[in-house]
């Protein structure tokens, strides 16, 4: 990986973080640019392999599809998993399943950055109290998007850059020496881990157990019939209309 590639990708691990305002705050940075799907596209563009980038990004994303941050609790740093995971996978040329296995530990380590950041902010907020009470708008601005962002930049950019710039060639060497039985294990694990993302999402979506019927229909449409996802989405809209709108029309009719 070249210096400029490592700098650009590390920059995105900062810009697309949940606490970074510059791309549009949590709603855009975390929920759009922070998703491994989008990370796959951006890393693919930077590294000149868009097709494999988006496939790897999407596969890593499957593991984290149900990840939300209610009340700021973060189970996994999906941004690091997406950007650094995709970049390492592309530079070593491993399969998408193996990329998932690379991304998991990265994502777990990344959560400590968030916890450390929020802890430092908990000290800073007392200084901010003082500036707020003085009515000092300039200093309040500094304490809102100035100082925390300097800290965030150091916490995000530096470790990501080091891992990418120095880790990529090391990872390349390691991958060459992985024995076949270990590749087998990593590939099987990478194949079944996305089941976790799906399970979390299912728990969230299943307000009543009978709704699992729709999941089964969607599964069969692709597993057995091989329909494109766009077609499946249209079938989903059709099913939702029949179930919801038909019911309310009937209610109105009586």
């Amino acid at each position, binding site marked *: 990986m070249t210096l400029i590639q490592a700098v650009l990708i590390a920059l995105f691990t900062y810009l697309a973080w949940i606490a970074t305002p510059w791309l549009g705050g949590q709603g855009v940075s975390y929920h759009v640019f922070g998703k491994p799907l989008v990370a796959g596209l951006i890393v693919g563009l930077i590294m000149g392999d868009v097709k494999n980038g988006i496939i790897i990004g999407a596969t890593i994303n499957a593991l984290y599809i149900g990840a939300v941050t209610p009340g700021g609790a973060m189970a996994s740093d999906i941004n690091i998993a997406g950007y650094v995971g995709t970049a390492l996978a592309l530079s070593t040329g491993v399969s998408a399943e193996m990329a998932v296995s690379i991304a998991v530990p990265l994502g777990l380590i990344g959560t400590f950055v968030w916890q450390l950041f929020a802890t430092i902010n908990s000290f800073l907020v007392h200084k901010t109290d003082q500036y707020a*009470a003085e009515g000092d708008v300039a200093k309040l601005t500094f304490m809102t998007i100035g100082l925390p962002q300097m800290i965030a930049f150091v916490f995000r950019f530096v470790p990501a850059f080091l891992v990418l710039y120095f880790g990529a060639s090391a990872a390349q060497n390691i991958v060459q020496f992985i024995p076949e039985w270990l590749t087998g294990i990593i590939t099987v694990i990478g194949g079944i881990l996305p089941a976790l993302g799906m399970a979390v999402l299912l728990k969230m979506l299943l307000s009543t157990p009978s709704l699992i019927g*729709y999941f089964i229909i969607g599964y069969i449409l692709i597993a057995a019939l091989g329909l494109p996802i766009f077609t499946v989405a249209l079938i989903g809209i059709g099913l939702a209309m029949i179930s919801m709108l038909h019911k309310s029309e009937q209610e109105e009719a009586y």
Partner: protein
Amino acid sequence: MAEKMNPEVSKKDIYKVGVRWLMSNTSAWNWERMQNVAFAWSMVPVLKKICKNKEEMGHALSRHMSFFNTEPTIGSPLVGAVAAMEVQKANGEDIPDDVFNAIKSGLMGPMAALGDSLFASTGNALLLSFGMGLALEGNVMGPIIFMVLWTAITVGFTLWGVQFGFREGMKIMDSEIFSPAMIARATAFLSILGLTVVGGLSAQFVSLATSISWTNGESTTQLQGILDGLMPGLLPFIIIMVTWYLHDKKNMSVIKLLLMLIVIGTIGSLLHVF
């Protein structure tokens, strides 16, 4: 009398509040009072118009340094509504700090619940699933469609929501879009659509095949071949169902399930089951 004191808070000022809230809501996030710094900072464009001196500004900013946390997009009308209360207060209405705190803490919870469960998770996951499905087919439009649509929805709703909240003031919770019936219908619609897409997505992303085979005389039978004859993708389906059951019905944590899947994969692979 009111004319003389009425501050000139324009639509543009509220737009600035919206932009500040959109960008900063998680910037100075802390364990103690969460989004409070961002909330206070977002009020500045309005407070600059209505506070006559630094002392007044100090009082107003301190008022908003109290605990605040909500889902930032769906919670945006609350930011506008509080800005409207500041203007009312500047116009001479007697609104003590307690009332500000009561209204903020009263509405931030329901808005966070709605935002987290319907918007940031279900809605986002639905569009994301769709984009992921396209991406796996090698289609670059997958990430692009997701990026463009979700950015437009988030930025659009936040900027509109702050204006809406400012116009409606404390009436926001009575409005149609936040009514329980409306929310229930939207949730049910998105659930059905979401489950169908997630079902398809599961088939694309979870993969597992058995390598068990046996030889009977001259013919070798592959177990996977028999399973495919029953239903393609049967093993991934079983894995998803078991994981979901343990997570949802047995309350097993994500970390435990992660370890469980790693152990299953390792043992299965070493014993040449998979």
